[in-house]
């Protein structure tokens, strides 16, 4: 701080601004890094899609809403316990599940795929149009940790909508924005 003593008020303000600006940049970068990693490794239970797919469980068995409406839905603890009351009960991850079941708490999963609040996506419409889950979610059956494979922005949606037969109808803004 002694070095600052010889500077004018203007120079001091400039110096302070630079320090604050630098700090802000560091904080923003940290937030971005944390936001990108938290979904992948911060899940309350290390759920493994691959093991479930290898045992022949279809996506819809757990994500029951996917053929019915907008939300694919995350299975309830009860659904998990339907099998895991008896299967793999000695695994530490399944014991975590039993903990949630006994405390009657929902599992605080972290969202992996997200859309902004002004975008309205309907899973059932896409299933009805024979779009496979993997077209947007990638090979989830190979994933030990669920991760987004595509940047689901407007260009991603429209690239596919543009190739459809009823392209004009699918380009209407009201299809997604309400």
């Amino acid at each position, binding site marked *: 701080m002694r070095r600052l003593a010889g500077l004018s008020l203007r120079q001091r303000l400039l110096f302070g601004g630079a320090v604050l600006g630098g700090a802000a940049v560091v904080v923003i970068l940290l937030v971005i890094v944390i936001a990108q990693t938290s979904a992948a490794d911060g899940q309350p239970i290390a759920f493994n899609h691959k093991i479930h797919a290898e045992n022949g469980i279809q996506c819809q068995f757990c994500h029951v809403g996917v053929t019915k409406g907008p939300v694919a839905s995350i299975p309830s603890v009860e659904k998990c316990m339907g099998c895991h009351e008896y299967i793999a009960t000695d695994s530490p991850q399944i014991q975590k599940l039993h903990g949630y079941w006994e405390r009657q708490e929902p599992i605080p999963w972290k969202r992996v795929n997200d859309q902004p609040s*002004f975008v309205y996506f309907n899973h059932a419409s896409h299933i009805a149009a024979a779009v496979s889950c993997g077209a947007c979610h990638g090979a989830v059956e190979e994933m030990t940790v669920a991760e987004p494979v595509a940047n689901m922005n407007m260009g991603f949606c429209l690239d596919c909508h543009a190739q459809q037969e009823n392209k004009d109808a699918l380009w209407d803004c009201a299809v997604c924005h309400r």
Partner: protein
Amino acid sequence: MAEERNNGHKWTMIVDLDKCTGCQACVVACHAENNVPISSEDEVIRGRANHWIRIERYWEGEYPNVKARFLPVFCQQCGNAPCEPVCPVYASYHSTEENVNIQVYNRCVGTRYCGNNCPYRTRLFNFWAPRFDEPLEQQLNPDVTVRSPGVMEKCTFCIQRIRRGREQANIEGRPLEDGEIVPACAQACPTDALIFGDKWNEHSRVAQMVPSERQFKLLENLGTEPAVYYLKGGETHVGE
């Protein structure tokens, strides 16, 4: 941007002024369905009341033989809409699929040109962050965007219900039926004064009622081609 008949739908509302009692149930239903923010008293006095439907009240006759007449006014979903060509960012645009005027909130930059060019004064500007007094904030409709400040909004004919109805029919692989899609206002109307449907479906209730002798449109001479038809009340002179 005049409309041409296509494979889409021509969503149309009929307002039967003979049946409207001015109860404002439609206004309340609209607020609940569309996350319309509640304006404070001060804002209302400054002419910034936020309602997608307003009930205009007219007095007819001399005291004591006075009659109250009501005219519900909301976005007329013009076929040739004055709000559309003035938007510099295409936030106000005409849906060729639903043939209604859509406001894309996330695209709107708040120039308010559309509101100034609307002869019906049905477009509203969000001057402030939306406010919902307790416990109203717990009943927000998840199917509708809560508009941020600096954004224009207006009646959408409950586009979320239109889309949901169409998507559901699509999922079930069947054609859309008349009366399946009902906006919140028409659903809440106790006297069935509001009738909604697809005018291009000739079997719809709306298509059969439009050629009525009592029919008129608001400011029809402007050539805006509204999709809202009013049916005159028995003794009323509104629209003449």
